[in-house]
């Protein structure tokens, strides 16, 4: 009886070794398979493929104020986006101008966007009733100077698009 | 156990317990002195078996600090909320339940850290997130520092 158990134990010892080695070989098959198949490489050579690299349309890169070809934007300085922003990343600075009809009205002076504090929550874009804002697909935001992350979104000399009332 | 049964059961156990405002779970406001006793009863009674404390919250309300215990039973699947109102805002203190539920030890340390509620007989009541020499309790409504986002 004792002999039998001994034989059994010796058998178990060798079975353990066999199963262990088999499992190791099984794992090596996976890495070996990928080693011989260079087509499975998934990493990209980034700066080289910059021309072909396209982000998804929805990608939230940075906020921009939409300008048309005549350098017109649609912001009417209602400040909703600034109020919706949880981090205070948007400052809308208005300036008063006297219109041709003699009334003073507020127009956009500077639309300041702090990319450094923006968390890309996306609350500002749907908040705008005029659809004046959108997220651009740019993604190379690294700069050496932190002040460059504070951006003025309205282009120089731009004005609000004249919409028929 | 059904909500009604639980209510009568609680009424028997602590006559001074008053039902709370929440409609989501049966809720009872328990006097601070009796909390540990009630909690032990809830945990050990075979009819309730509240063995899982899934949330312990400290609140800073107008009538004092609240400590809210969300208890549930993993076998009987019923939930009860206990609430302790600590009216003494200067020195809020309540008995610990960390001897009943191990999770409470760290929930209580968090409440102590951020709200300054003291838990008596707690084995290791130290700051958890903030440094040991931090002044003040940030989650209190009257806490002010230069970083607080004003709106």
């Amino acid at each position, binding site marked *: 009886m004792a002999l039998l158990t001994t034989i059994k134990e010796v058998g178990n010892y060798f079975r353990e070794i066999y199963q*262990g*080695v088999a*499992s*190791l070989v*099984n*794992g090596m*098959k*996976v*890495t070996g398979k990928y080693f011989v198949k260079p087509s499975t490489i*998934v990493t990209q050579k980034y700066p080289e493929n910059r021309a072909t690299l396209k*982000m*998804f*349309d*929805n*990608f*939230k890169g940075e906020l921009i104020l939409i300008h048309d070809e005549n350098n017109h934007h649609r912001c009417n300085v209602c400040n909703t986006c600034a109020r*919706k922003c*949880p981090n205070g990343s948007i400052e809308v600075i208005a300036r008063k101008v006297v219109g041709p009809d003699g009334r003073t009205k507020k127009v956009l002076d500077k639309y300041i966007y702090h990319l450094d504090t923006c*968390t*890309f*929550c*996306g*609350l500002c874009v*749907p908040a705008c009733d005029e659809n004046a804002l959108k*997220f651009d697909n740019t993604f190379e935001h690294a700069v050496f100077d932190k002040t460059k992350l504070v951006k003025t979104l309205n282009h120089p000399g731009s004005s609000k698009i004249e919409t028929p009332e | 156990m059904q909500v009604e049964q639980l209510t009568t059961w609680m009424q028997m156990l602590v006559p001074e317990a008053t039902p709370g*405002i*929440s*409609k*989501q*779970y049966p809720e009872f406001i328990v006097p601070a002195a009796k909390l540990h006793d009630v909690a032990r009863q809830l945990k050990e009674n075979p009819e309730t078996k509240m*063995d*899982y*404390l*899934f*949330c312990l*919250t400290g*609140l*800073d*309300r107008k009538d004092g600090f609240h400590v*809210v215990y*969300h208890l549930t039973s*993993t076998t009987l*699947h019923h939930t009860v909320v206990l609430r302790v109102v600590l009216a003494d805002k200067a020195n809020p203190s309540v008995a610990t339940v960390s001897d009943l*539920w*191990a*999770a409470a*030890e*760290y929930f209580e340390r*968090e409440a102590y850290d*951020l709200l300054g509620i003291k838990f008596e007989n707690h084995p290791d009541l130290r*700051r*958890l*997130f*903030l440094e040991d020499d931090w002044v003040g309790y*940030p*989650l209190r409504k009257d806490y002010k520092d230069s970083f*607080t*986002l*004003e*709106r």
Partner: protein
Amino acid sequence: MEETLMDLDLKEKEEYIINMGPQHPSTHGVLRFETCLQGEKVKWIRPHCGYIHRGIEKMSEALTYPQLVHLTDRMDYLSAHINNEAVALCVENAMGVEVSDRVKYIRTILAELTRLASHQLWWSAFGMDLGALTTFFYGLRDREKILDIFEESTGARLLQSFITPGGLMNDVHPNFQKRTKEFVKYFRKKLPEYDQLLTGNVIFQERTKGIGYMSLEDAISYGVTGPSGRGSGFHCDIRKIAPYSAYPLVKFNEITYTQGDTFHRYLVRMREMWESLDIIDQLVDNIPQGPTMLELKAVKPPKGEFYQRVETARGELGVYIVSDGGPTPARIRYRTPNFSNLFIINKIASGHKIADLVAISGSLDLVIPDIDR
């Protein structure tokens, strides 16, 4: 554990303390384990957290409900969608509104994709904790595909803040269904490879089996939920206990094991990936049409207190909103899964070797920002 803590104490009074973290490759973030060693053996562990405490609960008190959603992304950044969903559900329940079926379906699919992505990253990092560095790249390779799905629809890869009280920020991309189905098909082929590479490996099994035993009582008492708790037989899946969104409509199994060791915590997650794939399969083909956003005048829950439990990739997330009826919460409290999962480490890892401590903390799948908040 052959020797209890006390035996060790009697044998040797001298303490050899090393600090694992806050900058340490095995803690996956800024967490410090003050570890007392006796030779290779761990005597006790004292976790120190708070290195990235940002006061999300305090910050949220100054923000309106749609605004504070984006902060929840930053708690458990690997379950961002599920965290968003928790707040959204809590606010919706408080206001007594119900979102359309389309939103429910999409939320559930996104949540399951998030769970898959999270488990993939966990698998990668767990392999790396044990020294199998190649797993890291395989896991990340497959996770990228999920992140692509997210990016196409939500505009962000990691911190999407897509689910908002009342619905979704915008409708999903038309490609969403196609891509999701492609991914499910792709990943069903890759998942057996994970098992082949790591699960069956004899070294891996030796390293994890019987290590870090957590009893059911401990799991419940410490509130260890999620896959870590289910490895000990704790039926804590909120998707089953208190179903939300589209979970009542789908069939899936709650994976539990009673062994409670590191290997079975691992197995729970591996099998949960299969379950997640099944859930997505059931939902993705029949997303109903409907509005993706409720027409809400203002997101203002009535005066009162509201609690919502959801199942993130790591366990039970509770959102506790105390509202005074205003647009901002009077107090918001997150009962985060990792906070509760962390502190059991002293109990289950002391008495084991230092290498086991790494394996055990890996098997608890800790995400540090979720602990600190």
